C-alpha cells in the first residue's frame, strides 16, 4: 500500500496537498447538514406540538402550493418563449432572445418590494386606473390583492421563468433542426412539432431549468413574507428569530431539506434519458418560420409580456423612485456604508470560492477516482441548501470553531475571545462559499474539460511537473472561465438575503438586508436605491449569459480569447 501511495504521489508531484484540501472543503460543506440533523434530534421541547399542529401544516401546504404554481408557470412561460424565438421569426425576435433573460437580474424579494408599491391602492397603477375609470375613492375599485398566494405565484413565475427559458432554448437551438425538419416532412404542423417533438426532447432541459427556479423559490424569504405567504422559509425564520426556538427551526429546516432532496430526485427522474437528447449529431441551427400579421403580433406580445412584468415595469419603477429619492435626500452615508459592506463581503467570499473551486477542479482533473468523485459531489451540496437551512446548520460548526479559537487563545495569551467567527463576518463568508462553491467549481471544471488531457500529457513528457502544468497551461487557458465564475459568484453573494439576515454580525447591513428591513417596517427611504443597485449588478451576469449563449462554441478556445491572444 505504501508503495502504491508513493507512486501516485510521484505521479502527481507538486500537487500532493490538493486532495487533503479538497477533503477539508467537502467536510466544511457537509458540516451544516450534519449539525442540522443533530440539532433537530435534540427536540424543540414544548414547542413541537404547537409547531406540528399550527405551523408545519400551513408551512408545508403553502410551500408545496407555491412550488407547484410557480413550476407550472415557469414551464409554460419559459418553454413557450424559448420555442417562439427559436422556431419563428417575427419583429423584435433578436432582441427578445436575450431580453427574455432580464428578469433573472431581479431577485424575488425585489420584485415583490416593487410590486407591493406599484399595485398599492394609492400606488401608480391603481391611481391611473381610477383616473381612467373616473372613480374617486380607492374603495370603489377592488382589485385582487397582490398580497396573496396567487400574487406570489404570479410574481415568482414571471421572475423565475428565465431558468427554464435559458436551458430549453439552448436545447431547441442546438439539437432540433434535423428533427423538426423530419417532423415537417412527415406531415406534422407547427403545433404538432412543438407538442410531439420539441417538448418531449426538451424534457431534460425543462427539468433542469424548473428545478433551478424552484430552488430559488424555496430559498426566497423576502417576497413570500412581504406577500403574506407563510412558506417554510418564513416559518424557520420566525421560529428562530421571533420565538427564539432554534431546535424548532432546525426541525422545520430538516423537513425542508427533505423537500429539496425530493425536488432533486424528481429532476433526476425527469431527465433520466438525457443521454438521448445529448447525443444528437452535429448541431445545425433551425431555420425559423417567418410569421406575419396577427400571428407576428401575438408572438411579439407573448414575448414582451413576461419581460415587461418580470423586469421592465419593476426596474422602471425602482429607477424613478431611486431618482426621486436621490434628488430629495442625496446618497445617505449609511447607504454608502452598506454598499461598501456588500462589495467587501461579496468580494472576499468570491475570492475564497474561486481559490477552493480551483483546488477542487484540479483535484478532479489530476486524480479522478471514486474518492475524489464523492468529495466533489459533497462539496457541491451547498447550492441545494436554502439559505435559512444553511444558516441554521452552520450555527453548530461555527460555535465549535469559536470555542476552539477561544481555548487556543486562552492557552496562548491567557485571554479568551468572544464569538470570533460569528462577529467578524467569517460566518457570512463561510455561508456564501458553502452555497456558491458549486458555481466556481463548475465553471473551472467546464473550462478545464475543454482542454484536452493530451495537453497535460504533452507538457508532462516535455519535463513539466503536475503543478507546473496547472500554472503554465491550465491557468492561462481557463482565465475567461475564472472571470465568469468570479462575476457569477460575486453577484449571487450580493443578492443573497436569507443566510445574510441570519448570520450577519450585529449592526452589519448589506444592500439586501437593508431593503428587507425597510420593506418589513413598511418604510420607503433608501430601499429603492438599494434595490436598483442590486438589479444593476445583477444585470452583469445577464450580459455574460446572453453573450455565451449567442457565440458559437469552438473547440479549444472561445473566440474572444483567441483574438485576445492573437493580438496580444
Amino acid at each position, binding site marked *: 500500500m505504501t508503495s502504491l501511495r*508513493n507512486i501516485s504521489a510521484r505521479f502527481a508531484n507538486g500537487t500532493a496537498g490538493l486532495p487533503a484540501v479538497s477533503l477539508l472543503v467537502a467536510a466544511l460543506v457537509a458540516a451544516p447538514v450534519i449539525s442540522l440533523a443533530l440539532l433537530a434530534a435534540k427536540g424543540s421541547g414544548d414547542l413541537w406540538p404547537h409547531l406540528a399542529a399550527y405551523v408545519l401544516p400551513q408551512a408545508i401546504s403553502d410551500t408545496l402550493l407555491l412550488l407547484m404554481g410557480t413550476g407550472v408557470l415557469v414551464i409554460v412561460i419559459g418553454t413557450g418563449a424559448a420555442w417562439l424565438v427559436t422556431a419563428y421569426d417575427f419583429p423584435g425576435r433578436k432582441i427578445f432572445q436575450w431580453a427574455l433573460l432580464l428578469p433573472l437580474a431581479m431577485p424575488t424579494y425585489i420584485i415583490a418590494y416593487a410590486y407591493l408599491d406599484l399595485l398599492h391602492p394609492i400606488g401608480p397603477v391603481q391611481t391611473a386606473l381610477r383616473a381612467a375609470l373616473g372613480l374617486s375613492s380607492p374603495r370603489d375599485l377592488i382589485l385582487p390583492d397582490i398580497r396573496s398566494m396567487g400574487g406570489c405565484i404570479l410574481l415568482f413565475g414571471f421572475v423565475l421563468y428565465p431558468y427554464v427559458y435559458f436551458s430549453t432554448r439552448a436545447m431547441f437551438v442546438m439539437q432540433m433542426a434535423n428533427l423538426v425538419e423530419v417532423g415537417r416532412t412527415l406531415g406534422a404542423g407547427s403545433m404538432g412539432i412543438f407538442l410531439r417533438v420539441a417538448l418531449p426532447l426538451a424534457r431534460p432541459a425543462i427539468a433542469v431549468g424548473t428545478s433551478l427556479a424552484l430552488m430559488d423559490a424555496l430559498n426566497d424569504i423576502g417576497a413570500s413574507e412581504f406577500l403574506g405567504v407563510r412558506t417554510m422559509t418564513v416559518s424557520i425564520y420566525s421560529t428562530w428569530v421571533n420565538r427564539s426556538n432554534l431546535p424548532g427551526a432546525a426541525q422545520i429546516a430538516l423537513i425542508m431539506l427533505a423537500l429539496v432532496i425530493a425536488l432533486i430526485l424528481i429532476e433526476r427522474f425527469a431527465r433520466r434519458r438525457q443521454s438521448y437528447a445529448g447525443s444528437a449529431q452535429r448541431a445545425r441551427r433551425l431555420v425559423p418560420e417567418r410569421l406575419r400579421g396577427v400571428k407576428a403580433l401575438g408572438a411579439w406580445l407573448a414575448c414582451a409580456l413576461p419581460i415587461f412584468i418580470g423586469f421592465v415595469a419593476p426596474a422602471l419603477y425602482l429607477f424613478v423612485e431611486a431618482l426621486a429619492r436621490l434628488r430629495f435626500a442625496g446618497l445617505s452615508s449609511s447607504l454608502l456604508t452598506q454598499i461598501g459592506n456588500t462589495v467587501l463581503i461579496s468580494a472576499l467570499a468570491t475570492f475564497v470560492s474561486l481559490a477552493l473551486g480551483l483546488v477542487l477542479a484540479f483535484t478532479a482533473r489530476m486524480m479522478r477516482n471514486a474518492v475524489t468523485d464523492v468529495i466533489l459531489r459533497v462539496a457541491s451540496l451547498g447550492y441545494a441548501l436554502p439559505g435559512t437551512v444553511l444558516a441554521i446548520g452552520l450555527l453548530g460548526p461555527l460555535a465549535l470553531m469559536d470555542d476552539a479559537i477561544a481555548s487556543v487563545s486562552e492557552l496562548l495569551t491567557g485571554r479568551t475571545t468572544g464569538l470570533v467567527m460569528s462577529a467578524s463576518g467569517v460566518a457570512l463568508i463561510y455561508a456564501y462559499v458553502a452555497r456558491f462553491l458549486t458555481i466556481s467549481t463548475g465553471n473551472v471544471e467546464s473550462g478545464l474539460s475543454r482542454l484536452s488531457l493530451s495537453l497535460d500529457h504533452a507538457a508532462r513528457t516535455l519535463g513539466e511537473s503536475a503543478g507546473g502544468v496547472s500554472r503554465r497551461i491550465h491557468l492561462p487557458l481557463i482565465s475567461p472561465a475564472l472571470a465568469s465564475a468570479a462575476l457569477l459568484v460575486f453577484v449571487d453573494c450580493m443578492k443573497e438575503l436569507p443566510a445574510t439576515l441570519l448570520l450577519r454580525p450585529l449592526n452589519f447591513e448589506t444592500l439586501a438586508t437593508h431593503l428587507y428591513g425597510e420593506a418589513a417596517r413598511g418604510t420607503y427611504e433608501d430601499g429603492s436605491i438599494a434595490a436598483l443597485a442590486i438589479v444593476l449588478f445583477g444585470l452583469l451576469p445577464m450580459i455574460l449569459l446572453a453573450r455565451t449563449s449567442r457565440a458559437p462554441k469552438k473547440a479549444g478556445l472561445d473566440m474572444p480569447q483567441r483574438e485576445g491572444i492573437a493580438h496580444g
Partner: protein
Amino acid sequence: MVRGPFQAALPRARCAGFLVVENVRQTYDGFEALHDVSLAVAPGEILCLLGASGCGKTTLLRLAAGVEVPSGGRILLDGVEVAGPTNFVPPEKRGVGLVFQDYALFPHMTVLENVMFGLRHLPHAQARELAMRGLARVALDHYADSYPQLLSGGEQQRVALARALAPRPSVILMDEPFSNLDQRLRESIREETMNLLREEGISAVVVTHDPEEAMHIADRIALMHKGEIVQTGTAEDLYFCPESLFAARFFCDLNELDAQAQGGEVITPLGTFAAPHIADGPCVVCIRPQALLFDTDRGGIEGTITARRFLGRVDRLRVNVPGIEQELHARLRDARAFRPGQVVRLAVDARDVLVFPQRDHDKGKAGA
C-alpha cells in the same frame, strides 16, 4: 539513465533508447485493458502498435510515456526501471517524447514557445536557437511567432513533432499521429516524419489502427487484440505467416471456407491444400482474393461471375462456385472482359492460401 551534457552542435549524438515492457497489466474499474503484455523496442527501431480501437494499444503507449501508472508489471527505459511494483518515474523525468492524434499544441503559446516548452533547463537564448533549428528541420521556422491555431493540420503535426524531438528524448511515442490528416497529405507527412526519425536514429513506438500504414512505417509490428499482443514481427512475417486467423484477417480480406483437415491436408471444392501443422478435424481455409486466378486454360474449377466492380488498379469480382455456400471475392487487373453471369474456369494460387484450426470464438469477420 543520465544523458550527458547537451550537445547542441551534434544532432546525431542522441543515444537511441531501449524500451522494455515486461508483463504489464492495466485495469480500469475491473476492466482489464492490458493483459500481461511484454515487448521490447531496440535502439533506433521503429515499432508499430497495431490493432482495432479498444485493443489497448494507446494504453500501452501511455504507460510507456508515464502518463498512466500500470496496475502490474515493469517498464524499463535503457535498462532503468521507470515503472514497477515499487518504483515510478513521472513522465517529466523519463525523457520520452509524446505526439498526439490531436497534436496537443498549447493554444496560448506561439509555435516557437511550444517548441521551447521542453527546453526550460537551458538558457533562453540557447533554447531559442535550438527550437528554431528544430522548426527549420520541419520547414516551419517562418511560422515561429504564429499561434498554432492558424496553422494547417499538417503543419500542426510537424510542430508537434519538432516539440517532442527538441528535448532530445531517447524514445518517441506517437499516438495515431497521422490519422487527423486527409489522405493525400497523410502520405507525404508520414514519409517526412519517418525520414526525420530515421535520420535522428531515434527509437519510436507508433500507434495505428491501419495495417497499411503500419507496413509503410514500421521496422517491426506488434499486433494487439483485446489487451494482448497476438504477434510481433516484420510486415512480411505478419502478412505471410500470420499465427492466427485474427492476424491473417487483419492484414487481408479473406475468403474463409469451413473444411476438414485429414493427414496434413484439406480438401475443398477449390482443390486440395497442404495443412502440415493442423490436427485432423474441422479447420478454416483462408483464400486471399488475389489467389483466385481466372485462367481458362489451367483452371479446372467452374464458377459463375455474379458481380464486377471497377476499383481503379484492380477490379473486384464475386464468383459463385458449386459446392461453396458463400460467394467468393476475387481481385484482378484488367477484368473488363468479364461479365456477370459469365461462366469461368478458376485456379487457386496455393501461396495465397492459409489454413487455421477451427475458427476461434470471434466469428466477427467470417466470410469477409
